[in-house]
């Protein structure tokens, strides 16, 4: 199990790390962000796009957000303009912080059920397990983006959870 406190810590970490990646990527050219670098979702922009798609999909199940219209296969191409991706990311991260602030330990118990478009089936998993996956999936894809950012000469901030400032919202 994880608690509501876990969600709040990881929501702050998510917002901090995304801000760091956006700042680092904003210093690159459009061509550098879009360059095919052989990541699972290709480019820096494509991977960040997929991650926002995934976060929005999970928040539709966890917090009642509107699910993205696009399928997984289109997730890396979903938002084409960098400025639009940044704006949508910032809105999502505030929404994730709000959700984490409101979540309760009791709310993380029991099963979460949803219809998976990828698997074409009704799925049921322990609620906490899904939330944990939501945060782990972020760190995994940010790790890919981090590798591509440094390869492009950009330098994101520290990534260690225990170095997170208390001033993170």
């Amino acid at each position, binding site marked *: *199990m*994880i*608690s509501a*406190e*876990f969600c709040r*810590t*990881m929501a702050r*970490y998510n917002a901090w790390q995304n801000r760091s990646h956006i700042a680092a990527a904003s210093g690159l050219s459009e061509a550098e962000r879009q360059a095919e*670098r*052989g*990541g*699972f979702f290709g480019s820096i922009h494509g991977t960040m796009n997929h991650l926002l798609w995934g976060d929005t999909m999970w928040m539709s199940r966890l917090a009642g957000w509107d699910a993205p219209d696009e399928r997984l296969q289109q997730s890396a191409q979903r938002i084409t303009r960098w400025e639009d991706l940044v704006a949508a990311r910032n809105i999502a991260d505030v929404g994730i912080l709000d959700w984490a602030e409101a979540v309760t*330990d009791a709310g993380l118990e029991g099963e979460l059920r949803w219809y998976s478009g990828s698997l074409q089936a009704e799925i049921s*998993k322990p609620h*906490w*397990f*899904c939330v*944990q*996956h939501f945060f*782990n*999936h972020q*760190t*995994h*894809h*940010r*790790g*890919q*983006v*981090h*590798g*591509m950012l*440094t*390869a*492009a*000469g950009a330098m994101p901030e520290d*990534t*260690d*959870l*225990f170095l997170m400032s208390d001033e993170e919202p």
Partner: protein
Amino acid sequence: MTETPITPAYCQMMARYNAWQNYSLYREAKGLSAEARDLDRGAFWGSITRTLSHLYWGDMIWLSRFDAGEAPEGPGKGSPDAYSWERLWTLRPQLDARIAAWTWSLDQSDLDGDLTWYSGAAQKEMSLPKALCVMQFFNHQTHHRGQVHAMLTAAGAKPDDTDVPMMPDEVPEWR
């Protein structure tokens, strides 16, 4: 923190995920040439091998604080060069078994309170909530595996799924 944010069950699940993902990345890295594994691809720690060495070192240092067992060799600043690929291939499954054993030895009360240790990097005694340190341990793994994953796919390798819900019931054998 008013309460412990994680339980032993969370740690056990993440230990299984760690072992599964490490096997996937190591299997794919083994399929590359030594040159491809050691190529500086511009990640924070440069190459696939150096990132895996850093992650092994980091896992050893945190785990030694959690289970009072063996600590890694040398100081943290040497972490990317502390272990060769051949040693990592032998040592990584041993460490992953030790991580799993530690998680299965945990009681909820073991995750309460603060962890205090001497940090070689900060040159001072550090103290943080134990649960936060354990979260750091597992999050640090996923972060660096993400970097390695990007370098592996760029090298043409194909690691397994990375989503926790796709985790098999049994971790594949290391070979």
